[in-house]
Every structure is written in C-alpha cells, then in structure tokens.
C-alpha cells in the first residue's frame, strides 16, 4: 500500500475518523499503533515481527540505560543496541553484497572462494526505521532523552506509518514529546496539510512516474543512445528522484499533520544549492543531519588536523552512499560526494579573501554544483558499474553511444518543470487559498484532484526510496 493508491485513501480515512473520534490519548495511540502495523503488514506481515523485535530490544536497552549510572555498563548497553540494530540491517541489506564482494576480491588475487549467498527479502523501510530506533537509544545514552516508560509510545514512534517506509527519519527527541499530550483537532492546519498532500501527489504520481519510462529506457541500455539523449535522461532522472522522494515526504508529513503530529522537513529546494555542502543541508535533511550528529561528529568532525577532518568526511559520505543500497554504485556515489565536499572545502580555504574568486563563483557556483549532482546521480541510478561508465562518458565527455534518441522537445519539458520549480522557490504561487471560504476551498480541491488524476500515467512506478 502506497500513498498514491486509492486503497491508501480508504485506509487513511478510516484511521483519521476513528482516531479523532477517540477521546483518550492512550486509545488514540493504540489505534495508531495497530494501524501502523497493519500498514506495514500490507507489504509482508512476517516482517512486523522484525519491527517489533527491534523495538523491544531498544525498549529494554532504554530502560537499562535509564537505570544504570556506571559508564562501562552504559557503554555495554548502547553497544548492544547499536550492534543489534546494525546487525539486523547488515544481515538483511548487506549480507549478500559483502559475501559476493569478498568473493570477487579474493578471485582478483587468484584465490577463488566458493560463496553462498542467501535468498534474503529486504524488509521495506528497514534503513529508515532502524535509524528511528537507534536515535532513541543513542539519545538516551547521551542523556538528551529520558527513557520512555510506555512501550506503546516507543513502538508507535518506531512504526508510525507516515514516515515508516521512506522517511523522513524521525528522531526520538523530536517525536516522543508529541506523544505525551493529546492532539487537538482545532490545532490541525487541515488546509495546509491537504494542499501539501496534493503537492506531493502531483510530484510523485504525475511528474516522477511520468518521467520514469524515459529514464528506465535509457539506463537499461545507455550504449544505444546519443549524448543528447543521455543529457535528457540524466536531467529527467534528476527531476524524477527529487519529485519521487520529496513527493513521498510531502505526503508523509501531510498525513502525520492531519493526525496532529509534526514530522521534520526533509527538503529545502536542494537544486538551488550553490555548493555540495549546501546541497546536503537541503537534500534528505533528516538523513544528512542524522549522519552528522550520530556519525560525523562522534568520529571527530572538523576537530583535529585537516587530514583527520577529511577522513571523517570520506567515511561519513561513503557510509551515506552505502545506506542507500548494497551495491558498489552507491559506494561510489558516496565517494563522489565526499570528493566534491573536499574540493569545495579546499577551494574555500585557498580562495579566502580573493575577490575574483567570489565573482567567479557568483556566476558559476550553481551550474558547477548541479553538474556535480547530476554526475553523481548517474552512478546512483545505473544498474551496474559498466553501464554507469557508459552513461558518464556520454554525459561528461559527449562520446560513445548509439543512434537511438529521444525527442528534443523533451528539453522543453525539463525547462517547463524547472521554471515551475523556480517560481515555487520564489514563492510565486502564494497561499491565497487560505483566505477562501471553507466550502469554496473544498469544492476547488475536489475539482483539482479529479483533474490531476488525468495526468497520472497508466503504469505505476514504485517509490525509489522504498528499496532503501
């Protein structure tokens, strides 16, 4: 069940009506918990036990951390929690990748090893809820968050259905306080939420899914296409991945808001970033800030020598890449971003106080950043390294490729979407609908939604971030 299906609408209506009909906060939380597990079970009910097991371990660890004061015991408990969480994630997501990579590595040295990979199904959203859960124990360990006594609260925090399968990654310190008091319907910005849902729906169902067939066609056989087509496909993918992921996030935030809960913002016009560092402050903010606070800073952050700080950047970004998926393309994606971040840092350091450099960057910062982002996204999207190499050659060096080509008017589509995005960035669309009388707003919303459905393509493309 995904947010763009009709059955989600019926599911959410049921959740919404029953939720707001209930009087006590506890009853509401139990109801939401049941619905969240039902939502997750719609993919594969067997993995609800994994979700419950992971939460139970973190609840026990949280309680233990709350009780004991001894630093060594606290370290033991937090290590246990991190090991269990990462162990589960590593097994389901990375086991086959590490085994086959190790085998290839040994074969490279002339040591052929017989390997056994397992037929493992990746539980949907495992990377997201593992990070939700880990943030709780780590924050309790750091004494930023008191351990929760209510198992229901913790279970609901980990499994709350809007961000469960594709984020944003919610931290315990952000969400658990919201569960303490009962939500009030009068405090819900219904109009804002439903408009945000509509905007997310358009991004995902109309734009991202509409662009997907062209992107899929190119990346299946990049060698068959011309360089111009490579540019079209890469730019299409750049738009697709943003609309797909931010569309999901918008719908998740909107659904949570309609239930009275706030989720953190995940995107802030990332394609208007003027350097890669700025990009990561605007793209998948909940992941980048999670990695900053729970990985980069504990590794030492910017402290120490330049080399030490650079090492931390590389480790963080490579792991960030690996978080996205168990494949070398994702590792290289992370490494490319690490390289771009380091180049940017060096540029800042070397050109500090130079006016000419500032003048150049005034004009070139944005195109260079976008080019770097597109370049890295090729590797991110490619099915394997050889196809990534072909696509990179076509995109960066305008060489290689075949005779197939896409219509050039697709550049017009790119231009139109970019213009709409820019106008939105400049707040051109405004929020005048907030002033409309409620019945007028409701009627206009119904008409608009019916019209939007015309533009949904007949095929359905799964959310890109579901696989992570």
């Amino acid at each position, binding site marked *: 069940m995904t947010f763009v*299906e*009709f*059955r989600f609408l019926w599911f959410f209506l049921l959740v919404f009506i029953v939720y707001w009909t209930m009087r006590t906060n506890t009853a509401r939380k139990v109801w939401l918990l049941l619905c969240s597990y039902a939502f997750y079970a719609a993919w594969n009910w067997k993995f609800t036990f994994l979700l419950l097991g992971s939460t139970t371990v973190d609840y026990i660890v949280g309680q233990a951390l709350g009780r004991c004061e001894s630093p060594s015991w606290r370290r033991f408990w937090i290590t246990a929690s991190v090991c269990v969480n990462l162990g589960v994630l590593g097994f389901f997501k990375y086991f086959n990748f590490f085994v086959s990579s190790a085998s290839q590595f040994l074969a490279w040295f002339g040591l052929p090893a017989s390997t056994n990979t397992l037929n493992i199904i990746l539980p949907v959203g495992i990377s997201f809820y593992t990070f939700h859960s880990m943030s709780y124990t780590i924050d309790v360990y750091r004494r930023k968050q008191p351990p929760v006594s209510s198992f229901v609260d913790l279970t609901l925090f980990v499994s709350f259905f809007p961000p469960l399968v594709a984020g944003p990654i919610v931290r315990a310190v952000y969400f658990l306080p919201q569960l303490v008091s009962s939500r009030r*319907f*009068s405090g819900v*910005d*219904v109009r804002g939420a439903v408009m945000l849902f509509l905007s997310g729906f358009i991004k995902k169902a109309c734009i991202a899914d509409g662009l997907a067939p062209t992107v899929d066609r190119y990346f299946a056989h990049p060698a068959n296409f011309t360089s111009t087509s490579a540019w079209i496909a890469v730019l299409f993918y750049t738009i697709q991945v943003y609309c797909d992921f931010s569309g999901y996030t918008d719908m998740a935030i909107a659904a949570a808001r309609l239930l009275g809960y706030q989720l953190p913002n995940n995107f802030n*016009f990332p394609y*208007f970033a*003027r350097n890669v560092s700025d990009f990561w402050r605007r793209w998948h903010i909940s992941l980048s800030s999670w990695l900053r606070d729970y990985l980069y800073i504990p590794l030492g952050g910017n402290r120490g020598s330049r080399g030490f700080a650079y090492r931390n950047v590389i480790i963080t970004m490579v792991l960030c890449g690996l978080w996205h998926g168990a494949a070398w393309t994702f590792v290289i994606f992370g490494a490319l971003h690490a390289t771009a971040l380091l180049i940017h840092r060096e540029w800042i350091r070397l050109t500090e106080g130079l006016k000419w450099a500032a003048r150049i960057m*005034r*004009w070139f910062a*944005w*195109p260079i950043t976008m080019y770097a982002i597109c370049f890295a996204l090729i590797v991110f999207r490619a099915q394997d390294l050889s196809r990534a190499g072909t696509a990179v050659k076509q995109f960066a060096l305008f060489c290689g490729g075949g005779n197939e080509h896409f219509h050039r008017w697709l550049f017009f589509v790119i231009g139109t979407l970019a213009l709409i995005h820019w106008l939105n*960035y*400049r*707040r*051109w669309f*405004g*929020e*005048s609908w*907030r*002033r409309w009388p*409620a*019945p007028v*707003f*409701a*009627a*206009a*919303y*119904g*008409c608009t*939604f*019916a*019209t939007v*459905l*015309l*533009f*949904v*393509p*007949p*095929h*359905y493309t799964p959310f890109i971030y579901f696989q992570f």
Partner: protein
Amino acid sequence: MPVREPVSKVHVEPPAPQKLTGRETVIRALINTGIGAAAFLITCAGLRIALPFPEIDGGVSQKFRFFAAHKDEFDTLFIGSSRVYFQISPAIFDRVTRKRGMATHSFNFGVGGMYLPETAYLLEQILDLKPRNLRWVFIEYDEMQTKWSPENQTSRRALYWADWKRVSLLLRKLTDAGTDPLWRPNPTKLRDIVLREEDEKNTRSLLAFYAGQFEKNYANFARAADVLDYFLSRDTKKRRASYLGTASDGYVIRPGQMSPSQAAVYERALADAMAQPRTRPLSSYAVEAYRQCATEVRSIGATPIFLITPNTPQINIATENTGLPSVVMAFNNPRAYPSLYGSNAHRDGQHLTKSGAEEFTRMLAANFVELARAGEVK
C-alpha cells in the same frame, strides 16, 4: 548564476480561528468534506463525458474510430477475441450471403485477447453510437475471464472497460455471489479467499485489483496520456491498416501453419477433447453478461447471435439450454465440421490458418442464411 533569497510575494495571514464548539466543528468538517467529495465525483463524471474514446492498444481505438465514422454502412458486426479477428473475413461472408440472396455488409470487430467482460463493454460503446442499419451482431460465446497477467495489469487495456456493470459481475463471480440483485457471497468461498486456500490463492489480490480498476476508471486515471497520444498522431495510416486489414473491414490475415510436431500435439489434444462429453455450461455470470448484451442489441432493433468458433478448448461447451434468448451458432463439434478441425486447417489449438478461416467464414455465412430463412434469426 546569482540567486537572491526567496521573497514572499503574497503574504497572507491565515484567518483568525473562529470559536466553534466541538459539535459545530465536526458538522462543518463533514459538510466541507461532502462538498469536496461531491466536487470530485462531479468533475470526474464531467470529464468522463467530455473525453474522447481512450487510446487502447491492440487495435481497439482504431477499429472503434473507424466504425464510428462508417457506422451506418454496416448491417452485420462480429465481435470477440482473436478467434473472431483472424478467422472471419467480412468480404467472404458478404460474398456468400449475396450469392444466396441475402446481401449483407459486415465488419469484423474482433480484437486480440478480448473476452468478457471487455467484449460486453465495447459492444455497449458501439451500440451507443446508434448505428442505424445494424441488423445482426455476432458475439463470441465464451466464459468470462477473471485473470489478468501481472505484466498487463497496469496497461490501459486493463482499465478502460472497468465500469461498475462489468466490475460488479467480476466481483460476483470471484466471490460466487450469484446474479440476483442482492449479493450473497458463498461463505465457503469467502473463507477460502481470506485464508488463501489452494484454489483461491490469488483471488484476494484479484478482488483488490478489480476494485482498484473501477476506481481508476471512474476517476479517469491516465486519460491525459490518451489525448497526448491522439495529438501525437500515433494513429498513423499504416498503424490503422495493420488493425483494419487491407479491405478496411477489420479482418487481418495471419499466416503460418503448424509444424509436424505441433500438429501431433494438436491431434492429441483434439482427441482428448472429443472424448469428453459436450456438457460444460458457461457460468451464470457469463450468461448474465450475454443476456445484458442481447438486451442492448435488441434495444437498437438488431438481432444478437452467439458464436462458438472451431477451437479445441471450447469443444465440450454445452450449446443446448444456454439460458439465452438468442441463437448460439456453434462450430465446436469436430464430427459435424471435420474440415475445420484438421491439423492442416489450424495454426494452433485456437486459431485457423488462412484457408481454414476462409472455409469457416463460408460455412458461417451459409449457416446464417439458412437460419435466417428458417426464421430462427429475425
């Protein structure tokens, strides 16, 4: 490129919240939700009326547009699957009927892979065009299909016919709810569906699929792509000809013959089928759909004729006591029509070769004239 910080052009203060009691808030929310839902449903219905016939693969749109443009020229229509599409030549049919003193002008509306309930929907659309001279409608007689291959489930072809009339029959069939106005699902079947018992392993997902198709169809999902396709001129002359055939009568010749090994397999399957009694009735749901078709055909003054083509899977379908108020012209008896069942006349178990199709058309026309003369087809 220099980028300034975003500037808010329109700054609108949200209206000050009114003090409402809980009861008033709920009533207002319900009224506004009702208005929104009504606006949604009305817009969907309005758009549905305004939009042209969808662009459907497999020749559906091409044939429909052609027939709409020439609707008053034809008095005989054949509708069904590839067993109609590639096996009935309107040119031969018309020649035979003319020779026998009962001139017709026919059109083949067969489409590859088109079974009930798609056939029933398309027939309804054709009849809605009010073809003034249409007198005889041959409808392929076969079981109602409930399965769609997963790879075709997201196609437009799986969506355009999914209105309530069709989907409700499918849902009834899947839950064995009978054809009475009041649905009475079979409790045993329901239990098996819920527990995913062996025979009903995929029924749950099929029920969800068809319910989803109905919603999508009502909400005009993906119809903008139809308009785009239409204006991008995907419907070229060459493409049209590939579906309408060289004589623009909807019949397309399919070349090919069976290899000796395929012929041996065919002969075995034929012998097996012939060994079984011809008593397999169609489900009550298929009969109900055909009854609806017959009523609609009669409502424009034409006569429905149900047709079973010569093919091995349909050999044991019962043709007596069908429950239909119309004639069933059955060619599913290899003993009565041996020339249509020889391995040299078949491309595979379900389809005839070019010469087999021509022979079948001639027999069909001759039988039709005889039935008409005998007053069984008016």
